[in-house]
């Protein structure tokens, strides 16, 4: 048997008890990320992308919790680790980049402080060495005059620069997996591409695996190796970028790409599909996408278990697009 994948998520289920019953923002999600691989995760707002990322790094906000499934990192099971053991893995094994760089950094602490405290929390180095590494980390993400700006505060930087700092922070203890939750959504369009390519370059250099949550199909096509598509808490399609972007299999993916198969050219933002994603407490029976799906047939509305097993295991759909054409 060859070495285990960097990250392996198996049948992950996250539940939240609410006043109107228990909802499942993540339902039977399974995927893997190899070392050095970038997995793009797309889907409408509320599809459960962030919940999945938070579940992996062990930062689900109560009352959300993992009720079943397994998460393995380098072959070690990391869901339900004791709190202290999980804390040691955060930052060191799994780094996280958040959406809004304006709110991700502590406004009252100098950047250098935030970097060194992270390094010191995980690596057995002296304070002086930690400071050197902090400067090196800032240089690596392209902060000019890093040595002088180590004492600067977050508000002295622009949004794009701050997101570079956030990336430096997330990578400072050299994690093997990075979860980047919409790292460019809050940024100016002009700097989005720089940030994604920076993230891509750094992770490629270090062989870091990345779970890249984004709304931007352009980013997916330029950055990711494979794509996972989520809808209402479920994974509906998972395949290589080329496959998913040029010949989507699930009608929802196809809808996201703009109904026609050629997505990556020109059309960068996700296409609007008529109707709305159902609320979690109010999912239809059968396929959650069926009420909005133009291909839906009777079977889709029946209470049957869907698996990622059509289109060579790429999509969870009774009547996938590729197979209809065939």
């Amino acid at each position, binding site marked *: 048997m060859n070495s285990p994948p960097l990250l392996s998520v198996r049948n992950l289920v996250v539940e939240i008890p609410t006043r109107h019953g228990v909802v499942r923002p993540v339902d039977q999600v399974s995927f893997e990320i190899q070392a050095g691989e970038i997995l793009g995760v797309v889907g409408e707002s509320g599809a459960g992308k962030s919940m999945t990322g938070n579940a992996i790094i062990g930062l689900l906000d109560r009352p959300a919790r993992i009720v079943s499934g397994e998460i393995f990192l380098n072959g070690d099971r990391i869901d339900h680790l004791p709190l202290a053991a999980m804390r*040691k893995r955060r930052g060191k094994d799994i780094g996280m980049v*958040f959406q*809004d760089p304006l709110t991700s950094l502590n406004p009252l602490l100098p950047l250098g402080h935030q970097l060194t405290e992270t390094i010191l929390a995980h690596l057995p180095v002296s304070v002086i060495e930690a400071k050197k590494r902090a400067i090196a980390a800032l240089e690596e993400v392209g902060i000019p005059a890093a040595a002088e700006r180590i004492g600067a505060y977050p*508000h002295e930087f622009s949004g794009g620069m701050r997101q570079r700092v*956030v990336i430096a922070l997330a990578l400072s203890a050299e994690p093997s997996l990075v979860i980047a939750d919409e790292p460019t959504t809050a940024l100016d369009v002009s700097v989005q591409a720089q940030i994604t390519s920076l993230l891509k370059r750094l992770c490629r250099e270090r062989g870091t695996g990345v779970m890249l949550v984004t709304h931007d199909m352009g980013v997916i096509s330029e950055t990711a190796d494979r794509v996972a598509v989520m809808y209402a808490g479920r994974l509906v399609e998972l395949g290589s970028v080329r496959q998913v972007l040029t010949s989507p299999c699930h009608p929802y993916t196809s809808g996201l790409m703009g109904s026609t198969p050629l997505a990556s050219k020109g059309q960068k933002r996700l296409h609007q599909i008529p109707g709305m994603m159902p609320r979690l407490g109010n999912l239809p029976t059968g396929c959650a996408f069926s009420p909005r799906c133009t291909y839906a047939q009777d079977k889709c509305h029946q209470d049957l278990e869907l698996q990622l097993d059509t289109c060579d295991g790429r999509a969870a759909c009774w009547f996938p697009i590729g197979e209809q054409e065939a």
Partner: protein
Amino acid sequence: MIAYVIRRVFHSMIVLLVVGLVAFAMFRYVGDPIDNMLGQERTQADIERLTEQLGLDQPFVVQYWKFLRNAVDGNFGVSYRQGRPVAEIIAERAPATLELATVSGLFAILVGIGLGVFTAIRRNGVASNLIMTLSLIGVSLPTFLIGILFIYVFSVELDLLPSFGRGDVVQVGNWSTGFLTKSGLLALILPSITLGLYQMTLIMRLVRAEMLEVLRQDYIRFARARGLRERAVNFRHALKNTLVPVITVTGLQLGSIIAFAIITETVFQWPGVGLLFINALQFVDIPVMAAYLMLISVMFVAINLIVDLLYFAIDPRLRIDGRTG
């Protein structure tokens, strides 16, 4: 930033001028100073001499100006009751009040912040809920009742702590301190807790509310996601961010500790300026009352100024743009 500080100092001066005006008006127009100072057996010549000596025949503004100049020199006239300079009497009494206020201020700040952080971190714990419930009682009971309750429990029933006075004091230069004797320290406990309890509860509830808000922020999530220890997240990252609003309220509350000392000093017969003021009130000893008023307002203004400067120390964003916010 310098412009900001200058502006704040300027505001403070205006506040003091207004308070000075009130104190002066009281001094000059509540009762007749001549009456008060000469008593029943007086001649017309006496009255005229004193009127001229006190400058009471001069225009209002001139008198006010003189009053202020004297106040700045620490000269508040002579107490009607004791016949000694007011400044001297206050200098004798001030250490008692300042020591009491310092200890209860420290109590309010340290215990308030500590319990606030604790109840925020253990939001749903039994201990937190108990503390929050007790604090509601603490806020709603009046100070004098708490004082009497403390005296009843700890002095009368348990006989652990003294119920009145400062205990033994030691004279250090012009300052009489209760910090250096055991009885002096024991005597401080009940009054300072009584005096600081309300402020402590307020600070605790405020710290808790701010802390809960801050703990929801992205940078706290990010700090956790970087694997920092809970202690570092709670104290280095979260607590510091709660301090700016907390300092505002704390500053104001410290001012009111000194003002509320009147009640506590009365309940515990604490020989400070508060008790002095109460006694002055009974005898309509106007110079003492005016001086007390000025003193309290100077403290309020000074505390406010310090609070404003603390903002700069804590929040780097203010240092750069110098905005007043």
